[in-house]
């Protein structure tokens, strides 16, 4: 049997069901590896003691019909977990212990999973490098002093470093797919309305979605099957029949029409990414798919639109952090001073920047020029995809315009940081499902990803295309465990 921590979710569940491994054995091995992996800084809060108790409890009365039987899983620290501190990577929630559980994490525990701990992320999921976290940056296991992407950077690093079999992240503008691409892992953002937002710390409510982050496509289908559900507690949750994604997973994509949008290129994009894309296209052809050139003419307007819509929604959502009902409070002479000091000391620079942008674009006299304009352009971006999907079944693009960069390289230039999400943001604006799969490496041996975008609720199709491509690409991460301590 291969090393337990490097096994896929599929292998671990099979081994548990066949009684070759116990939940306690698996849980302890992951905890042991985490203790030696502190240098990566993936955990904000661990739940190790309780996890061992729960694994023993599972083993004493196992239910092998569950989809995640006794499987330990660490999750992004943006999901509220009942009785376990939830910080969203922020000082302002440093001491917040939820008294309720997010629907998505509840779905995990209902299927037998065990909480290992809470994973580092950019503050309120605002960032593309995990450098805005109050709890410090995360190291990418791919190489020392490289960012793991963001905002789900602790999650992508934890999966790549074999510190959790799978995890869940959230994606508002690329926060699952970009870190997956930077770490050689798989990450899927579902259709808006597929996974409940109840109990997820809100960033931009019309864009936020939770999704699986895994080592491979099959694991991704297994995890999506568990977390995707209709939920009365989320008013934008959509009631539709979800597929049995793992059962219906198939490499047969013969005759599928795959669109290649000519606009998914940027100035100075490394040749390797263009090459990676060409390889993906030829693999898809090799699987019998039909390649069709398409145009998404408003692609270049997606990021400016996003940087109005997302901060506007964030400024409203984050108004609740005022030091009154929960979280950090800085004392003041009067109520207003308390608000202002609490928010000034409790939020980090990037979060403040975005609240300021949002407040400005929603303020009297500027609403029409910015927010309304952005909502109109968002309609045009969505229409681009509607038109494209009348001709094709899915769209193939690079996931990111570059590979992982060095820690500190882009922290002083917000706009250059925002450009990381140029290929992922349009998908959130249009509410579509998208998946990033590892597809190759650049000259530094850093992973690069390809993105498959689908029609609304067509997760099965993009999983199947990814499954077929994954088989042809045969990606190997070759991570050296350089960070391990004794």
């Amino acid at each position, binding site marked *: 049997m291969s090393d337990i921590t490097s096994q896929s979710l599929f292998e671990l569940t099979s081994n548990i069901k066949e009684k070759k491994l116990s939940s306690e054995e698996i849980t302890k091995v992951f905890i042991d590896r985490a203790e030696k992996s502190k240098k990566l800084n993936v955990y904000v809060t661990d739940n190790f003691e309780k996890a061992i108790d729960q694994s023993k409890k599972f083993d004493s009365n196992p239910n092998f019909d569950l989809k995640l039987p006794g499987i330990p899983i660490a999750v992004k620290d943006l999901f509220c977990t009942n009785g376990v501190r939830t910080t969203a990577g922020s000082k302002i929630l440093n001491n917040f212990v939820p*008294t*309720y559980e997010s629907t998505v994490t509840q779905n995990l525990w209902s299927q037998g999973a065990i909480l290992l701990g809470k994973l580092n992320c950019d503050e309120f999921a605002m960032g593309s490098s995990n450098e805005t976290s109050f709890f410090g940056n995360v190291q990418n296991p791919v190489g020392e002093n490289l960012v793991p992407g963001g905002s789900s950077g602790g999650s992508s690093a934890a999966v790549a470093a074999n510190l959790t079999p799978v995890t869940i992240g959230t994606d508002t503008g690329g926060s699952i797919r970009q870190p997956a691409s930077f770490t050689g892992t798989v990450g899927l953002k579902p259709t*808006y*309305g597929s996974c409940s937002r109840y109990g997820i710390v809100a960033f931009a409510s*019309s864009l936020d979605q939770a999704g699986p982050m895994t080592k491979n496509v099959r694991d991704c289908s297994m995890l999506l099957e568990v977390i995707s559900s209709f939920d*009365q507690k989320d*008013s*934008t949750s*959509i009631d539709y029949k979800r597929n049995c994604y793992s059962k219906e997973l198939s490499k047969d994509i013969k005759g599928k029409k795959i669109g290649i949008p000519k606009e998914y290129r940027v100035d100075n994009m490394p040749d390797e990414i263009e090459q990676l894309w060409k390889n993906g296209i030829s693999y898809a052809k090799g699987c019998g798919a039909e390649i069709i050139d398409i145009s998404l003419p*408003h692609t*270049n*307007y997606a990021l*400016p*639109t996003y*940087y*109005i819509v997302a901060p506007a929604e964030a*400024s409203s959502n984050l108004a609740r952090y*005022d*030091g*009154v*009902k*929960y*979280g*950090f*409070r800085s*004392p*003041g*002479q*009067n*109520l207003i*001073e*308390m608000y*202002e*000091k609490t*928010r*000034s000391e409790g*939020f980090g620079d990037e979060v*403040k*920047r975005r*609240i*300021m*942008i949002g*407040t*400005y674009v929603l303020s009297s006299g500027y609403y029409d020029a*910015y927010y*309304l*304009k*952005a*909502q*109109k*352009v*968002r*309609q*045009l971006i*969505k229409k681009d995809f509607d038109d494209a999907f009348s001709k094709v079944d899915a769209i193939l693009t690079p996931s990111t315009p570059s590979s992982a960069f060095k820690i500190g390289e882009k922290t002083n230039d*917000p706009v250059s940081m*925002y450009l990381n999400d140029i290929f992922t943001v349009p998908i959130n*604006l*249009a*509410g579509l499902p998208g998946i990033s799969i590892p597809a190759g490496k650049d000259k530094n041996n850093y992973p690069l990803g390809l993105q498959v975008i689908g029609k609304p609720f067509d997760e099965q199709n993009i999983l199947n295309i990814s499954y077929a491509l994954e088989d042809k690409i045969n990606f190997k991460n070759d991570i050296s465990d350089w960070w391990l301590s004794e």
Partner: protein
Amino acid sequence: MSIDLKTVKHISKLARISIDDEKANKLKGDLNNIFEFIEKLNELNTDNVQALTSIAETTLRFRKDEIKSENIREKILKNSPEENKDFFVVPKVVE
């Protein structure tokens, strides 16, 4: 269009985030860079475009107005920054 220091201070007041002059100056630079980037949208004519208000093309559901959680006072007050078993405590607001 450019955002001046006075505007930055005004926004920070609206956003209830106190900032000193040094931070305000830094933010002024950042915000101007970001808005320069956002201005790209003005290239597009959107006169006849309907604004997108909801991405999930569904109407909000109705539900019965029922009490589903009871006796949750303790839970709600559990994370309050200043302890008091009955209320949230804030600085005095009435003279």
